[in-house]
């Protein structure tokens, strides 16, 4: 059972840039990375990922960072695959020596373009990622490049 689980897994890394697209007006685009394990099921492919993103502020002393855990749905068998992710994020923002932290819900929808070479899968991902604390919604538009090894 454990062996079957391991053999059906894939591990991957994504990295790219995200641009504030909704609500945020005082931060700039910043890098974001995602590490994940994936698992194929009969209907869709699932992934469990951790993400981190860093956005410098228009004020050079200000930064906004996000760290999250997300569950994703996509289809690696398709050349063009929609992708949906849902999870939670931990946000921190700092200016000089003061900082605030909190949690938010995150959701992502986008498109993958899959290319395969033996056990490797390479893809660009274009997405919109929304975050919300119920009171307010905000979001980012981003592009990632992903590399996956499928066991």
């Amino acid at each position: 059972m454990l062996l079957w689980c391991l053999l059906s897994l894939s591990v991957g890394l994504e990295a790219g840039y995200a641009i504030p697209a909704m609500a945020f007006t005082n931060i700039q685009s910043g890098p974001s990375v995602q590490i994940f394990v994936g698992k194929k099921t009969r209907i869709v492919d699932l992934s469990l990922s951790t993400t981190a993103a860093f956005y410098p502020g228009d004020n050079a002393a200000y930064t906004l960072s996000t760290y999250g855990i997300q569950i994703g749905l996509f289809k690696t068998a398709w050349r063009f695959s929609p992708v949906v992710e849902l999870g939670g994020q931990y946000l921190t923002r700092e200016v000089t020596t003061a900082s605030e932290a909190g949690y938010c819900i995150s959701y992502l929808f986008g498109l993958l373009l899959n290319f395969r070479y033996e056990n490797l899968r390479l893809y660009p991902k274009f997405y919109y990622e929304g975050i919300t604390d119920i009171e307010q919604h905000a979001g980012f538009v981003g592009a990632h490049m992903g590399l996956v090894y499928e066991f």
Partner: protein
Amino acid sequence: MNSKGRMRSAWNIIGTIFIIGTVMLCCDSHLVQRASSDYFCLDEGNWWFLLSASDTLLMEVESVDTLLQRECIPVNSNGYVDYLILDDDAVRQYVRMVHYFSGEEHTIIESYVVRIALPLVDGNVWSDRLLDSLYIFDQWVRASYYVKGEVLACEYSEAYGGDVYSIRLETITSYDSADSVSVDSSYVTEEYAPNLGIIRVIRTDGDYLLADHELQ
């Protein structure tokens, strides 16, 4: 129930706890709102009417003006106009300090000082100082304008639908010449609500609370 069924039930429970926990944490923190809201609403035509036990305070945003080659926003508070600039890193205030001698007005300081450091983050502390001197009729007159600010608290207010920032500002002005020294200090605590602007002003002459407002 077989092992596969038990595992599925366990995952369902973990998933449910994760979702409920995430939603509860999010409802409690409001950080997205704090990071993305406008706490000053300095658009032309906006006004706030505040009431204390014995006085009133009407603050109104007037049309954009230009001072020292910079566009600034005049905010009229009961007839006294503060000229503000909303920069990425601070709300700056126009300051002009003059010295009167023999019926003439001599400008010693004319510049912008950091009034509130931006963005608002709980616990942030800042200060700024303008200092200059002028030689007037055989003596040097030195002037200083010092502002020290601190974000005292950030607390959720159900009435205003978000986290309200409380800011304390200390201003010390001084004139220093060969035969006299004058120092004046003032303290004010201001409270700002998201996408609403100022809601409370606490000064030595009273505690003013928002009674009415209009945003364009």
